[in-house]
């Protein structure tokens, strides 16, 4: 927008103070006001008056439970961010071990995968100490402290619903994908690690479904290696500003297993390394949470699966 004359800017001051003009007009007026001895003070005085108008709004009571929920989420988010900020780069030891679960297999991650890993490591929510009144048992806290989660951008296309089919698909993914297949090829060692995580002798498979019983994928828990591998398909993207968060549900805790976003095709693939008592898992649940994740579930369960035999 061209520079405004003094008269033009002056006529728009009230609209700018009230946010009732287009953004470009507001920018141009503020630019003029910044150096105009008449418009600058006038705009400031009008903005002061506008600020007082909020006092005129009749008070509306917020739902007490919702108000308390917002308070809790703000506290958790701020605490999580503070703790994350205090963590030395590239991440706490437990997270580093999580990365090692992929990098320690004798191969180097592709740059794209590494970037995704790094991004997810930065997003991992530190597991908080709960209120004293509902404190987790010490063993849960100890276990939570050692959880190491990595969600990668590895994309698996056309994943079928059962483990064998999935295993077969990974095993047979050609190193020369079809021209129409834009999914990045998986490095052989990475592929082998995925297969081992999902197809070992002591793997528990938890089918995951929506509340309407629509099958969405599986969580594979290799109880020998403590590898967790989750594959989902046809997931809708979360709402703007939100993310999906995975929870390992035991009798005494809901343990955050990290956050993820499905890819453009609705697929999501997530790996984690976390030791859990072989009989402790009761269910796996996925909730929609504010971006960055939450220390405990606050949103509705969108996908879940029972670990009952």
């Amino acid at each position, binding site marked *: 927008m061209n520079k405004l004359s003094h008269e033009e800017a002056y*006529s*728009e*001051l*009230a*609209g700018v*103070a*009230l*946010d*009732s*003009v*287009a953004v470009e007009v507001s920018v141009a007026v503020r630019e003029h006001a910044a150096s105009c001895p008449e418009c600058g003070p006038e705009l400031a*005085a*009008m*903005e*002061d*008056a*506008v*600020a*007082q*108008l*909020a*006092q*005129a*709004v*009749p*008070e*509306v*009571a*917020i*739902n007490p439970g*919702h*108000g*308390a929920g*917002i*308070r809790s*989420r*703000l*506290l958790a*988010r*701020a*605490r999580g*961010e*503070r703790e994350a*900020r205090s963590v030395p780069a590239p991440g706490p030891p437990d997270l580093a071990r999580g990365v090692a679960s992929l990098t320690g297999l004798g191969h180097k991650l592709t740059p794209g995968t590494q970037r995704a890993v790094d991004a997810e490591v930065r997003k991992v929510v530190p597991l908080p100490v709960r209120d004293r009144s509902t404190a987790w048992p010490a063993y849960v806290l100890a276990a939570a402290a050692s959880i190491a989660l990595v969600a990668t951008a590895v994309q698996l296309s056309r994943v079928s619903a059962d483990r064998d089919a999935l295993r077969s698909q990974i095993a047979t993914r050609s190193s020369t994908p079809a021209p129409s297949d834009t999914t990045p090829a998986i490095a052989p060692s990475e592929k082998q690690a995925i297969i081992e995580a999902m197809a070992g002798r002591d793997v528990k498979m938890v089918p995951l479904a929506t509340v309407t019983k629509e099958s969405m994928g599986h969580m594979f828990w290799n109880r020998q290696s403590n590898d967790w591998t989750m594959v989902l398909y046809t997931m809708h993207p979360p709402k703007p*500003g939100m993310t999906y968060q995975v929870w390992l549900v035991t009798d005494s805790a809901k343990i955050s297993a990290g956050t993820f976003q499905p890819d453009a095709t609705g697929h999501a693939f997530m790996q984690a390394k976390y030791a859990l008592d072989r009989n402790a898992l009761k269910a796996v649940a996925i909730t929609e949470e*504010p971006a960055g994740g939450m220390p405990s579930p606050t949103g509705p369960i969108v996908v879940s699966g029972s670990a009952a035999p």
Partner: protein
Amino acid sequence: MNPPERDLAYSHEVRTNAEDVALIRRMCDADETALVALYDRWMRSLYSLVFHLLKDADDAEDVVEETFWQAWRKASSYEPSRGAVSTWLLTIGRRRALDRLRAKGRRREESMTDVRELADVASPMSDPSQAVEGAERKTQVLSALAGLPHEQREVLELGYFRGLSQTEISELTGQPLGTVKTRMRLALQKLREPLAMYRERGD
């Protein structure tokens, strides 16, 4: 070690800007309990404002959370010389509410009936003493609004409390755009003096 969390929830204590500024400084030092304290002090005012704009409890709650989160993230950008913390917070919240309102295009659904039912925020018929329960500042603002000529109060209400642009106000009321601008300017100029005593600076 984190400072102990104080229970300030929904208190009716006297809120001074100096206390708010102190909370902002603690937020700059990543003290999350200061954020919660600020939330407890201003959540009701902010919720009332954004609910009035959005007319939807879920949306209003989202905006309240986003606003306080932005305040946490941008605490260091607060400049006391530009106004009180409450002004800063309410401005953030109102802008976020307007963004949401405009993104949803909800205003287009409003009819003239809605406009006439503007809740008479500043109607001379309203009872300021009852509405504000003795809050002197609120009484003063309501009185100042009630003292405006009807046509000036109308454009102010449509602009501030409904978040309409000047162009939309012009279309809605059938008044020329220039008239809307003039009325808006006159309204704000008339409000300045009676409300100047409540102008708070953080410095």
